């Protein structure tokens, strides 16, 4: 059941979206954060062969089976995280970026992130005044089991505070902000270490941006269900 081929016809010049029938796994090796278990990863590859031509494109990604949930715990007022149904005590570190000349390398990310795992942390929070971190950052968080809290590019200092208040309505171009946010989500959404998208640092984004982010990022109804028949 781990190899599936589907036949699809794509009209000339068209761009279509295709969903495979779901692949079922029995007792898959789950991905766990640092300290809770192994960071099992599967190599998922997708290839497309065109009749009369041969292999046309290929794509691969390391994927981890895990379920991450979080909610505001009424008793403590804090955000409580669960991974694969297990509550987890978050030991997190702040992250701004590796280097202010953006000389970002795999080696640097591997060293920085392994350091966080060696310090027995299990979450890294990417501050809103820094970057949407890069795929190589997330890859090593997958490998070493660091959950990632990724903020979008709004900060309490620059957006909507201060005397006089600066940028009360955030960036000038909200459509550009949402275009960048959507493209960033597509770039990072398959990494098992990605645990939480956050609108900004110590500040709620402008209403239209915040509403659009919440709407785009809510779990697809297909996965809301708690029983299989709703899925089928």
């Amino acid at each position, binding site marked *: 059941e*781990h*190899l599936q*081929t*589907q*036949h699809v*016809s*794509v*009209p*000339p010049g*068209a761009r*279509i979206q*295709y*969903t*495979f029938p*779901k*692949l*079922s*796994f*029995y007792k898959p090796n789950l991905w766990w954060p640092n300290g809770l278990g192994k960071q099992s*990863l*599967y*190599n*998922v*590859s*997708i*290839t*497309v*062969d*065109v009749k*009369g*031509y041969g292999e*046309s*494109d*290929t794509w691969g990604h390391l*994927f981890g*089976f895990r*379920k991450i949930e979080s909610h505001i715990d009424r008793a403590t007022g804090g955000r409580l995280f669960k991974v694969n*149904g297990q509550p987890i005590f978050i030991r997190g570190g702040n992250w701004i970026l590796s280097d*202010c*000349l*953006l*000389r*970002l390398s795999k080696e640097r990310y591997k060293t920085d992130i392994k350091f966080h795992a060696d310090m027995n942390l299990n979450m890294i929070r990417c501050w*809103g*005044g820094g970057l949407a971190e*890069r795929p190589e950052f997330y890859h090593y968080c997958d490998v070493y089991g660091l959950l990632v809290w990724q903020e979008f*590019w709004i*900060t309490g*200092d*620059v*957006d909507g505070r201060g005397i006089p208040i600066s*940028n009360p309505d955030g*960036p000038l171009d909200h459509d*550009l902000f949402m275009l*960048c946010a959507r*493209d960033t989500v597509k770039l990072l959404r*398959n990494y098992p270490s990605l645990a939480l998208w956050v609108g900004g640092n110590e500040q709620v984004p402008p209403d239209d941006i915040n509403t659009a982010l919440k709407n785009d990022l809510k779990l697809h109804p297909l996965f809301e269900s708690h*029983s*299989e028949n709703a*899925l089928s």
Partner: protein
Amino acid sequence: MAEIGKTLLESGWLAARSTEVELTGSQLTTTHPPTGPSSPWMEAVVPGTVLATLVKNKVVADPFYGLENEMIIDIADSGREYYKFWFFTKFQCKLSGAQHLDLNFRAINYSAEVYLNGHKMVLPKGMFRRHSLEVTDILNPDGENLLAVLVHPPDHPGRIPPEGGQGGDHEIGKDVATQYVEGWDWIAPVRDRNTGIWDEVSISVTGPVKIIDPHLVSSFFDQYTRAYLHATTELENRSAWVADCSLNIQVATELEGSVCLI
């Protein structure tokens, strides 16, 4: 026939300040390409920022040491043109038949004009967005392709008040870009506001149909003993005929040692 897949363009880049280059992008990528790191051209750090390139070539002091950052002119004083830079490289690629080539920029800060073999394309504003340009029809027949990128700094680089502070005068917040670059309580201002080709540049060869942004989601039942993998992808047919495709998904895990379970 070029091999299907992605190739990083991460070596052989040159850079020059735009105000020191008389030529146009079309001339740079046709009749007058730079021949090497001779003034005003220098070896460039790509991916990286303009300042990374200037530090590498010792054109400016290293801002990480002492108060050297104070020696580097801030964009607020120099003007945006001073940190508007050309980046240039060459790449080999010979397609055959129904093959297609994309030129990909995973992130640029803040906007850019791309010239390939004399053809101009624009990379719109925004620090956190990818750009993918289909360049199949403008490749050189001999396989040697000339690429020049003119990178513009953020629109609102701001000015650092004498007292510094978190985010300087907050002007950078008007753009969709990283905000720490105007300085914070933990870092001095970054003089070029991180202008540059700050993430990977690649070319990717495909056949007539291209796979775009697959999305993988897992769902669980019976205490995680039963799981499903849901996969959705976009497909683009860039040919002029209907493409009958076989779409394959394969999941393999590395068992202990080097045994692979398919």
